[in-house]
């Protein structure tokens, strides 16, 4: 495997019926083990970029290569399987299924991926180890998710993203719901765990303070060559949010 974990080449994306590209990224490379920070205000195409990286959507042209696999060469089912096998995803909030316990939430990805199941080995032990590393009190492990604070929920989401050693962890503004004390603690643990596993981290946020902690920072407005955001109106004359 080459050092390039993610490679975007001349990627263009627009929704069907749109006249202008929403996203146009000529070139973006993320190397193995790297922590990439993508910054950009809302509306700059962050969600679109994440959907492309996770294989939810396909680029209209260009190539999104993840772990030497061009996603456009895979069927949608294969892309879902690729995501299940190689990616861990952390959302802004509401990461956990309310009807599963903490342990079950963390083990959830292993239910969709044999690869993660194999990597995790003893799933329960691995899930418990991850949760303890992320400073979740052991008394909460088999409790309902509703018993957790927001900070604990986000850390549990990290454990879920990391179980089964995915090569890439994608985080979409995971700290936006946290206060600064919780945020710092979260970032510290996230770095520590991804480094321990050797996972590549792609972190999307508009928070400048966090950006300072990253070695590799990319401004989405700068790498996105799309004309879409320059005039903030579409052809109908309505402002786009």
């Amino acid at each position, binding site marked *: 495997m080459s050092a390039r974990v993610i490679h975007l080449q001349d990627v263009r994306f627009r929704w069907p019926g749109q006249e202008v590209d929403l996203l146009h990224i000529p070139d973006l490379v993320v190397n193995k083990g790297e922590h990439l920070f993508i910054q950009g205000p809302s509306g700059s195409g962050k969600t679109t970029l994440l959907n492309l990286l996770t294989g939810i959507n396909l680029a209209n042209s260009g190539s999104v290569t993840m772990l030497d696999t061009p996603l456009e060469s895979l069927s949608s089912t294969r892309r879902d399987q690729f995501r299940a096998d190689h990616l861990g*995803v952390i959302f802004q909030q509401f990461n956990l299924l309310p*009807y599963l316990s903490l342990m079950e939430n963390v083990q959830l990805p292993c239910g*969709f991926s044999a690869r993660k199941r194999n990597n995790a080995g003893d799933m329960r032990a691995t899930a418990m180890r991850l949760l303890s590393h992320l400073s979740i009190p052991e008394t909460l492990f088999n409790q309902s998710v509703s018993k957790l604070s927001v900070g604990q929920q986000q850390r549990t989401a990290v454990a879920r993203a990391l179980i089964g050693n995915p090569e890439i962890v994608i985080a979409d503004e995971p700290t936006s719901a946290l206060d600064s004390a919780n945020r710092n603690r979260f970032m510290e643990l996230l770095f520590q765990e991804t480094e321990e596993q050797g996972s590549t981290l792609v972190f999307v946020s508009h928070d400048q303070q966090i950006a300072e902690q990253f070695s590799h920072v990319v401004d989405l407005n700068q790498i996105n060559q799309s004309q879409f955001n320059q005039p903030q109106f579409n052809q109908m004359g309505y402002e786009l949010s």
Partner: protein
Amino acid sequence: MILLRIVLKSAWHRRTSLLLTILSIAISVSLLLGVDKIRKEAKNSFINTISKTDLIVGARSGPTNLLLYSVFHIGNATNNVSWESYEDIASSEEVAWSVPISLGDSHRSFRVMGTNTDYFTYYQYGQGQTLNFAQGQAFTDVYDAVIGADVAQALDYQLGSEIIIAHGLVSTDFAAHDDKPFSLTGILAKTGTPVDRTVLISLEGIEAIHVDWQGGARSGIELTAEQALKMDLQPKAITAFMIGLTNRINTFRLQRTITEYEEEPLMAIIPGATLAELWQTIAVFEQVLLVISGFVLIAGLLGMLTMLLSTLNERRREMAVLRAVGAHPYHILLLFVLETVFIVFIGYLLGMGILYLLLALTQSLLVESYGVNIAITPPDAQQWILFAAILLLSVLVSLVPGLIAYRRSLQDGLAIKV
């Protein structure tokens, strides 16, 4: 496997609304199956009121009318059959047995039927059951009487009780055969047929009480019970008679012979055919009832659909999380299909359970008070087909929220829109 676990856990999380939905499905299923059951049993019980009798012969009128007054004791004969005609037809070589019956009197709103002891041998109902005595035995004396189970229960009669028969169907003191009381010798076991509501006496008994009557009123001469016994009690006419054939192949031939009988206008009906014909006219109500219960079930399914649709929005996060961990949109669709099938499956089983429980609880009551014996049987083929059809219907119903969620999860991707 993981999907099934997610479905169960997710369903348990929303158990209150799901349990209500399951309950509404269960109630509509038990209603539908119950109506179906009662419909079939009622038809059975109706069709089985008389069996193994090949022909019923009476004065010429309508076939339904003849059936109604001779078997169900509803309405009246338009005319009588002369004893000569009866003997003539009964002695035909095709006839294996015959039982004469004579109607027209009543006892405290129960019909009195004159017949002979052959009635207890040859009258059969259900799948060929004959009449059984709960107590006592058949009449032997002119002033002996046998009563059906309902009569015994309603009037609280014991063996040896005295019965006064009223002339005609309305009991008044003026038209009572109170000078010739009958004595109860037998009580029949419950049959679920009109026999339960009948007082049976001998044909000679009928003659004896009418021997000093003329044209519906007392004649001038009054005869005591003992004096009447000395009279000629050979009946001159009867109301109808039942025939069993030596060979059923002759049924239509004998029927035609009787219809063309020259001495007097008679008619013969095949009870099974006329019963089926009569049922056809009643069947409309039964079908209406079935249609109504069908609609109740559809309402139940629509209620379930409403419940599923109302949870769609709040479950949007759940879908995004599942997509993030690698679920394909068809997994999302499957989630709804599995949940719906699960609800309907449990609901159907619960509905069957409710029905069987109700049947078990009310079975003896139904037999005792209505003579309707509803057999508790395992679901028949038709009900299993209904089960499969309803499950299939529930899959179709589940496609509505399922496809909406499927489309949304394609659009939303990993973005959680709340």
